[in-house]
């Protein structure tokens, strides 16, 4: 009898020990929005990339957390003298999660699908410079460009450019099959997505055996889920006002990283009175950026003076051009013929940076005589009437696409800035691959739009993550939307 008790005891200790060990290889990650489906190549929803980027799908190149672009499924590449031919050498022995081999045919299939006539790729523009994709041998693929493109390797790192297989493309939206260190295992819609370690991964295998993504949109519920330890990590924590409480709690760590989100007060450059540069300048000087950051984001965010990410090496600090100066703002308005101010509209999409920031900016504008009437819009409505319909005076939005200063060269983009000099500059930049020359041109472009006061430049969106103390390897920054779990470890 004693014997049996002992055995049972030993058994139960073993059970507990393995339970404790098992816990260390599973992680519960929460995020605010649920992906609508899991195909990163046919939608813009950032939640899709958050789950699948690097975990499930990989591209020829990939982003690291610091924003650098490194080899992904392509081990190396050569670029021809004229910059028109890129030869990629693929890694050997890479298989998809269904066991099929990843080879040059898959690369051709993926890129041709993304740039096809009837493609539903949300970032089709990334692929426009590609004229042809040729399979040289199973591990070599050649891209021929119609014109040199200095950002091709960068473009190929996007989640929209990941490599997919023709064998599994049919069900990619609900059963994504990629080459990543994790395999998709289950999706309870509305609640969670489970992924499991890929035992046949070509690179360093993941430390975690399994991971669960949960979707908690309500900020109060987000706070409760972390405090009750229902989740281990909350990426993109929606309530910045709660962060100090987590920082003070030894159970948690708070990471505040940067994003590619330039948050701007966009002005309708073709509509009076914003077609007058004096008025735009007056608006820019009326804004107290720090007050917006403190009031709307509880201090999270870096002030910007142009449309460029401050952590980027080519960033130029131009905040001085649009310094907060209500006196000067009133003078400029008078000079432009609006001594008594004017009325306009301020359209606000749902995120809190826009809704909270909008209230503060409206008050700041009122102080110089500009009466901006606030209208709250849902995203779908904002896209239709403000973004595509140009029906706005002012709006606040964060441009989260990386390196998107090129939008200023498109006169049809919603703020409708039309400047031939900048358009020419961006066209030259596109075909330049010399790094020094590119830096110079990017600096010039930043200065042109800042001095033209195209938009009111507010701040770079911060990315807060709350995690259990001791968890390491999480991405601090968001060069692209991703919750890369491949390097995450428990203490």
């Amino acid at each position: 009898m004693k014997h049996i008790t002992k055995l049972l005891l030993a058994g139960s200790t073993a059970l507990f020990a393995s339970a404790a060990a098992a816990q260390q290889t599973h992680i519960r990650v929460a995020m605010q929005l649920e992906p609508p489906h899991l195909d990163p190549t046919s939608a813009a929803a950032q939640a899709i990339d958050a789950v699948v980027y690097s975990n499930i799908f990989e591209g020829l190149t990939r982003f690291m957390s610091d924003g650098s672009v490194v080899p992904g499924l392509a081990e190396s590449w050569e670029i021809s003298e004229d910059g028109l031919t890129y030869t990629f050498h693929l890694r050997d022995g890479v298989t998809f999660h269904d066991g099929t081999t990843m080879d040059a045919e898959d690369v051709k299939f993926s890129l041709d699908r993304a740039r096809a006539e009837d493609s539903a790729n949300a970032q089709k523009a990334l692929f426009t410079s590609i004229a042809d994709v040729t399979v040289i041998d199973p591990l070599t693929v050649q891209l021929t460009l119609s014109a040199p493109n200095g950002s091709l390797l960068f473009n190929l790192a996007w989640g929209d450019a990941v490599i997919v297989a023709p064998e599994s493309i049919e069900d990619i939206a609900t059963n994504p099959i990629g080459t990543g260190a994790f395999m998709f295992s289950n999706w309870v819609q509305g609640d969670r997505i489970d992924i499991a370690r890929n035992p046949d991964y070509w690179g360093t295998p993941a430390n975690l055996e399994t991971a669960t993504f949960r979707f908690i949109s309500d900020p109060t519920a987000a706070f409760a889920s972390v405090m009750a330890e229902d989740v281990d990590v909350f990426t993109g924590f929606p309530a910045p006002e709660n962060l100090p409480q987590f920082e003070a709690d030894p159970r948690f760590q708070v990471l505040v990283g940067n994003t590619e989100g330039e948050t701007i007060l966009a002005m309708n450059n073709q509509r009076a009175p914003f077609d007058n540069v004096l008025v735009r300048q007056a608006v820019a000087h009326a804004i107290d950026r720090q007050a917006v950051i403190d009031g709307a984001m509880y201090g999270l965010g870096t002030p910007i003076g142009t449309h460029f990410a401050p952590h980027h090496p080519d960033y130029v600090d131009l905040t001085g051009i649009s310094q907060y100066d209500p006196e000067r703002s009133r003078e400029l308005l008078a000079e432009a013929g609006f001594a008594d101010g004017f009325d306009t509209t301020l359209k606000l999409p749902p995120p809190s940076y826009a809704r909270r920031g909008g209230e503060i900016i409206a008050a700041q504008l009122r102080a110089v005589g500009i009466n901006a009437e606030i209208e709250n819009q849902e995203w779908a409505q904002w896209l239709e009437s403000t973004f595509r319909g140009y029906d706005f005076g002012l709006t606040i939005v964060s441009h989260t696409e990386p390196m998107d200063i090129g939008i200023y060269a498109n006169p049809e983009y919603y703020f409708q800035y039309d400047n031939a000099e900048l358009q020419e500059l961006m066209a030259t930049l596109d075909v330049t691959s010399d790094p020094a020359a590119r830096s110079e041109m990017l600096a010039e472009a930043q200065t042109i739009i800042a001095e033209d006061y195209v938009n009111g430049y507010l701040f770079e969106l911060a990315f807060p993550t709350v995690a259990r103390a001791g968890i390491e390897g999480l991405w601090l920054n968001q060069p692209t939307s991703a919750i890369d779990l491949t390097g995450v470890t428990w203490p």
Partner: protein
Amino acid sequence: MIRYTIGRLTSLILSLVVASVVIFAVVEVIPGDPAAYMLGVNARPDTVAALRAELGLDVSLPQRYLAWTTGMLQGDFGQSYTYRSPVSQMIADRVWVSVPLALFALSMTVLIAFPAGIYAASRRGKAGDITVMGATQLGVAVPNFWFGMILVLIFAINLRWFSAGGFPGWDQGLFTGLKALFLPAIALALPQAAILARVMRSSLLDMLGEDFIRTARAKGLSRRQALWRHAVRNALIPVLTIIGLQFSFLLAGGIVIEQIFFLPGLGRLIFQAISARDLIVVESVVMLLVFLVIMVNFTVDLAYAAVDPRLRART
């Protein structure tokens, strides 16, 4: 009884047809294109057009209405625009959270309200009555989402007895499922119980003043016997009406509570679908809720007839 039932059935079918037209019309006029929403700000117009065609959004409105309704009659709710999966499957998954939650909350409502209402009525004007009525006053005044937040604060964050939300699934066992729904059900039930207790009390008090109660007392029944044998049964008619309304409210009203407890129910589905302009999902879920509400009302109508034979004679 048969004629009465047929009359109710006709009105049920008519209501469903009218509801489907209204829902479709209202949802389709909301500004915002689902394809444009899905593809975001960098999408090119030809890409949006390609996706619209893929989703079947390029055909005329009447055609889409017909396809939707005829599909529904065959149990096919169509394909979600954003999720790219069958709507009927999505609804089937969610119903297993929302309906048990509503039923759980409703039974709590009844379990709290009946004793409270009867107790208060039998102690009219005394301390017990005043206490119960005071508590219900508070219950009616406090919104359920606030109750939900307070419950989470106490039982999930401080005491750690329950998780703050989420639903593990029924395959984890009945107890685990019920435990996950416990706090949300209480949050939903308390305000409703307060309302129902008040209705129960006043309806009972009305009955207690009726002649037949005096007759019952005169033939020798005690106060308590008269209350239980005659008053309670007759007081149930208005109470049933309220319960019917409350069940509909609990089903549809779960939207807010499902957000707070991040439960994968119909409310959350509809919430996400509206912001993503997943029109077909919105239409189908609303239609389903309307259907359930109409069915509940139908059942309540039949229950009236069962409780009160006089109603059968009419219509």
